[in-house]
């Protein structure tokens, strides 16, 4: 089983150092520290294990270090920044692993950009040597890129000429969309193994500045401090420690404090149950901070995040994920209002941003996703957002026979209209009602109202409202039918239907770039016996099928 739980004391590949408002996130990949045997992580090349630590560090920098306003992303090794994803690892991995690896690394790069853009914690990448492939893509996630000018250090995306795959961790997209590099120059850059160094890297917009070796450390420090000056993060607050999650698991069950996963292997489904608050709302912000990582909204989101990663990585054959909630909507409302009231605080802001990122992970889940609204549920506000993230939602109209739990309701809040956008830049409701602006406005008009199934269906907020006569059969048909379809076709269908509306860099990365990469990952030119990934390192050259597809 692959676990996403770690902490700085357990890191093998990264070091964190703090200098007031500036933190250093230093990559020193341990060569024999691979997640599985069979490859050496030379030249700061990485595998999923390295990225799991990176993700953890990025999260902790946001929550545990409010005083950090600039993060310097740098290498602990001389003359080498990062050589990108380990090629032997890619060459020996299953297709499923490659795809999930790329998705997670992409999400982590996005979370770095999210910190720079929204958290007042900006990333500065200091490239001290070779930054190749995924190494340069990591740099591309930063706000500002500095390249040492020593006649040796270069940035490159050599995937096409060297490996017959793409710079798939956002590389191609960020060159033209983020760095706004000219496409003809980008074509040149992506077609040469040796990359670009020195002033030309600045001229071509690949990096923001180059500095000679003797002045590099000072210049990086000065730049980091300058970048820190504009941040609204507090200098004098202590951080929120992210304690290890309490997880109890067995073969088919995984329990967190507020999230339960139960797996039905025969049906290839999993239910993810999110539970409402069980503790009193804190009286004030200070109390919420004292609760820290146990503060319900944060605890819930952390657990959901881990649950999604767990299912993605460790349960590949569970094709359908069903989201349910259980709890008191009024309590959820109270907590959400608390978040609203304190949005300006760095900690509350981090929680809301984390909600946003985790809901995006739901959007990018390559499983069929459903939400079932049943008696006892609490689909209020940000939890109701799950209804709009999933492929379909089913709501019980009324009560179950022999159960006096009240008929379920759902309630919209302001959170459904702004703070939790999807990767396409729109809210889920905007995306849902792309051609129905009136429906969207109607939905806004019922903010705060508890909607029974009939009203919810009328408002277009659930797919179907079923009474208890039909519920059991319809749900069974739904799940059995879904399980009988091709997983590939379903993944493709869902990914295409979920992201209506405009393209953004993010949708291009997860849509166009990842889709092409995942196709190339299946092709003999990359992974066949004579393919480039298989030949890499042996000295033998790949043989390509020359037909253009």
């Amino acid at each position: 089983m692959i676990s996403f739980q770690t902490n700085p004391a357990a890191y093998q590949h990264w070091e964190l150092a703090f200098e007031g408002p500036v933190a250093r996130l230093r990559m020193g990949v341990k060569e024999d520290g691979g997640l599985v045997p069979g490859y050496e992580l030379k030249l700061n090349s990485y595998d999923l294990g390295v990225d799991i630590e990176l993700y953890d560090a990025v999260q902790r920098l946001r929550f545990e270090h409010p005083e950090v306003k600039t993060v310097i992303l740098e290498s602990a090794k001389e003359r080498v920044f990062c050589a990108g994803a380990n090629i032997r690892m890619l060459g020996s991995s299953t297709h499923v692993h490659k795809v999930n690896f790329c998705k997670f690394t992409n999400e982590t790069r996005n979370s770095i950009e999210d910190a720079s853009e929204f958290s007042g914690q900006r990333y500065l990448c200091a490239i001290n040597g070779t930054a190749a492939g995924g190494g340069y893509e990591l740099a591309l996630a930063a706000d500002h890129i500095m390249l040492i000018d020593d006649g040796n250090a270069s940035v490159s995306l050599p995937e096409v000429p060297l490996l017959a795959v793409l710079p798939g961790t956002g590389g191609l997209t960020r060159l033209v969309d983020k760095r706004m590099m000219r496409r003809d120059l980008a074509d040149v850059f992506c077609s040469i193994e040796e990359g670009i160094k020195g002033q030309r890297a600045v001229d071509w917009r690949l990096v923001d500045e180059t500095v000679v070796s003797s002045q590099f450390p000072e210049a990086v420090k000065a730049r980091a401090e300058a970048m820190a000056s504009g941040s609204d993060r507090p200098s004098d607050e202590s951080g929120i420690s992210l304690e290890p999650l309490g997880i109890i698991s067995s073969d088919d069950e995984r329990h967190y404090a507020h999230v339960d996963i139960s797996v039905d292997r025969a049906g290839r489904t999993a239910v993810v149950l999110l539970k409402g608050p069980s503790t009193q709302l804190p009286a004030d912000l200070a109390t919420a901070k004292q609760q820290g990582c146990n503060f319900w909204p944060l605890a819930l989101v952390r657990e959901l995040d881990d649950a999604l990663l767990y299912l993605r990585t460790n349960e590949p054959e569970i094709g359908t994920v069903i989201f349910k909630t259980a709890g008191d909507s009024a309590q959820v409302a109270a907590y959400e209002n608390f978040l609203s009231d304190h949005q300006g605080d760095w900690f509350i802001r981090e929680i809301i941003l984390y909600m946003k990122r985790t809901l995006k992970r739901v959007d990018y889940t390559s499983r069929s996703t459903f939400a079932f609204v049943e008696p006892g549920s609490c689909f209020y506000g940000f939890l109701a957002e799950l209804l709009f993230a999933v492929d379909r939602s089913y709501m019980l109209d009324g009560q179950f026979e022999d159960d006096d739990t009240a008929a379920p309701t759902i309630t919209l809040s302001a959170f459904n209209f702004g703070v939790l956008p999807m990767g396409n830049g729109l809210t889920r409701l905007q995306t849902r009602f792309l051609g129905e602006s009136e429906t969207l406005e109607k939905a806004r008009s019922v903010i705060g109202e508890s909607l029974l199934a009939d009203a919810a269906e009328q408002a277009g907020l659930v797919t179907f409202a079923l009474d208890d006569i039909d519920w059991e059969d319809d749900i069974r048909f739904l799940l059995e039918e879904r399980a009988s379809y091709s997983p590939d076709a379903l993944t493709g269908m869902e990914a295409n239907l979920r992201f209506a509306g405009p393209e953004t860099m993010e949708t291009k990365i997860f849509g166009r770039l990842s889709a092409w990469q995942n196709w190339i990952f299946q092709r003999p030119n990359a992974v066949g016996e004579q393919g480039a990934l298989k030949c890499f390192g042996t000295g033998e050259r790949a043989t390509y099928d020359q037909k253009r597809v």
Partner: protein
Amino acid sequence: MSEQTTEMTPTVEVNYADKIPNNVNLSDDRRLQRAMEKWQPEFIDWWKSMGPDGFQDAEVYLRTAVGADPKGWAVFDYVKMPEYRWGILLAPKEEGRVIPFGKHKGEPVWQEVPGEYRSMLKRLLVIQGDTEPASVEQQRYLGKTCPSLYDLRNLFQVNVEEGRHLWAMAYLLQKYFGKDGREEAEALLNRRSGDEDKPRILGAFNEKTPDWLSFFMFTFFTDRDGKMQLESLAQSGFDPLARTCRFMLTEEAHHMFVGESGVGRVIRRTLEKMKEAGITDPNEVDKVRALGGVDLPALQRKVNFHFSVTLDLFGAEVSTNAANAFNAGIKGRYREDRLEDDHQLLNETYPVLRGVDGKLVEVEEPALNAINARLLDDYIKDASAGVNRWNKIFDEFGIDFQITVPHKAFNRRVGEFAEMHVDVAGNVMSEAEWNAQAANWLPSQADEDYLLSLMKPVTEKGQYADWIAPPKVGIDKKPGDFEYVTIES
């Protein structure tokens, strides 16, 4: 720098093709001629600012390559170094030559760079090319402390020929690699040995060459790496590179002669002093130093240093790049043409000493990936043979001492043993243990200071510094008091 350039400008304008000795029909290649015309004054600028410090107006008795015929390829004459006729010379073309190894074995050699190997070839040329000016830069102050005019002339001969080797690489870059190649040729003139901001590419070429013993060690050990690399490239399927390197090897032999005979003369002089003073124990360092000789333990430490630093130049023992270059037919093994196997190595293995869990273990690696390891072994064999020739001098004097080369894992910064601590005999130890004994193995500051204290210039005809014996034979069979360098006062 710029004012010196103007001196050369007239020669640029007058029938330039004639001014560059060449056997590549330079006058027929307008594009290349233009490129070299632009590069040539930049080279002279570089030479004047980074070549030998002082002596630019001295008349030096140098050999100049004028042809590629092994029997009569050079002439000796007095020349001012900036007017040295650096030329472009390739070994004669062999008709019908085929690629001798790798995937393309048996196919006709390439006369142009195959597009798919452009990047790999360019990288090899840039790395090789970068070492040529680097050593000139490293040695630029040695003239001030020369032990004799003979040695001064040898230093300058080595320097101008390294300059010519730079020309050879610049020629290949400019002729065969388009715009990229021209930029790389210029970059070769812009990096500087030991400069923090624009260092030379390889570590050993950023080390100082502070004294003449270092110079001799460098030409013996480090130029021998150059020889191994050139021997490997001389096998290349890219014919212009193969021919270029074959000719460079003709010149390189002299550099190693300077090193081998130089160290030999130092040993000889020390032994003469010991014999005269009746010292038989080489470890009586103080006595030897009191006589102004280079003590043998210090000499051994210099060997340990230069040998180990040079091994780093071979790169990682197990290397994907080397495998790619061999399979592509770009870079072969040492004297590939004399090896008897299939020259493709797809199913072969080669034993490589590796560091595994803190131990030194011999591992059978795919032979393609072990190309560097094999070249390293060939180098060690070649260097050890030279060291054994020094050891004969001890026999001659009846002194019980042997120079040895340290274990290949000793003092390494690159490759398999970079993270390990291994002593000269090959014992793995902790960093603390290693550091505690390092002064026994590597030159100490006191050693360096002592050597520097010996470095007093001797520039009278036929005279030699007291720490080095005269050569047995003069250059170009000149008599002992020949004025190899005419220094105007």
